[in-house]
């Protein structure tokens, strides 16, 4: 097998790739980390309404320093702006939107995704008593589409797209699509179906970095 040269997508590149696929008119929640960057890559003329679980619909971009409003933060605790038409509501109402399947899409970060759509993104060990669930379990169960953005492998080169997750689950069978630094994959009945690979990387090379079997 010949080694090709290829350049994995960085954080912003992965966010931009996912943003390409969000249709106008969707209600979308963006998780903490790379998913938050997705909003920056949706073209201004495409009207997508962003939900933040701390009680905002119509989240706008980060404001200029002198226009910051300390009372207006997103779920990542970053100061944001409000789009005209935006609204505020309490947490019960906010999670009614999430759990009542009113959101078209949530984009989450991930540690691991399994070929059956299981997601692990809140803890790396089964030690109970601490952990960072936040809104992830509600979003993973409640949104109509669940996309995960993550590096294709760990820093140590271990696979993140697995037959079965080894970390504690966020929700079973919830992920519909994965955007990694190397590829875009749908989660289908038969497992991961590769939709897109970055230039210079072959299907076989992608498979070598993936534990689960990939389908064309």
């Amino acid at each position, binding site marked *: 097998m010949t080694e090709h040269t290829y350049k994995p997508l960085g954080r912003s590149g992965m966010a931009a790739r996912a943003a390409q696929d969000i249709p106008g008119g969707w209600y979308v929640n963006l998780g903490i980390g790379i998913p938050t960057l997705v909003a920056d890559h949706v073209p201004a003329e495409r009207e997508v309404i962003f939900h*933040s*679980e*701390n*009680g*905002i619909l119509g989240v706008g971009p980060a404001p200029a320093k002198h226009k910051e*409003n*300390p*009372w*207006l*933060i997103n*779920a990542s*605790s*970053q*100061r944001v702006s*409000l789009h005209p038409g935006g609204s*505020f*509501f*309490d*947490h*019960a109402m*906010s*999670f009614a939107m*999430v*759990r009542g399947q009113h959101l078209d899409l949530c984009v989450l970060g991930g540690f691991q995704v399994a070929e059956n759509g299981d997601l692990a993104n809140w*803890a790396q060990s*089964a030690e*109970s*008593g*601490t*952990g*960072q*669930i*936040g*809104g*992830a*379990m*509600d979003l993973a*169960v*409640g949104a109509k589409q669940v996309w995960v953005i993550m590096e294709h492998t760990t820093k140590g080169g271990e696979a993140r797209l697995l037959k079965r997750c080894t970390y*504690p*689950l*966020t*929700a*079973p069978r919830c992920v519909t699509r994965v955007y990694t630094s190397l590829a875009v994959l749908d989660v289908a009945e038969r497992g991961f179906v590769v939709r897109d690979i970055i230039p210079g990387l072959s299907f076989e090379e992608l498979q070598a970095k993936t534990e689960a079997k990939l389908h064309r």
Partner: protein
Amino acid sequence: MIDKFVRSMAEAMDGIKDGSTVLIAGFGDVGAPNALIEGLIEQGATNLTVVVNSGGRNRVAGVEPSGLTKLVALGRVKKMISTFIRAQSIAGELVRTGKMEGVVIPQGTLAERMRAAGAGIPAFYTPTGAGTMVAEGKESRWYQGRECILEEALPGDVALVEAWTADRWGNLVFRDASRNFNPVVAMAGALTIVQTHHVCDLGQLPANEIVTPGIFVNRVLHVPAGDPKPVV
């Protein structure tokens, strides 16, 4: 005349017992009733069960913990129910060393359990958490083709709330994203105590705009606390 305004922090905190379950609103620093938490520290109640979205900050060398982080660091909390307890935080430390019980739950489940408590619903089924560690020890059954787990209402002996403006009936409005957990915490507390930035005469809050009606509120303390701090 109904007057829910109290004139001092001591009056606001009066009667809170050791062993109480205390619901605390806020998301980050926004909408957090920090003055009331300091008041609770001063008041002295201990052996508390604290219910709060996030378990507080990490230990930072040379920085005195404040607010919730201080209450926890002082060892006054025996159990914390939260959506987010970082392993490196002071709360995480106490959980790891067995000095405090930590229970991490989904955020929507937290909000709904408090809403249920306020609405007289003892328990409900939800698919959130089914098939995960959150489901351990909980009854489950299938609805509409999905596994759901039984979650119980989460009432508080005390609820701590931050409002933007309040009147003497305890009607509340909130500013921007500071609304967050405040209305649900207010309805789930047996004794709901509010700190408010502004006060107004009865009738000045437009009836169409009142978010939390005063029926859910017991005491209101005027605390012009200033802007929430950014997350460092």
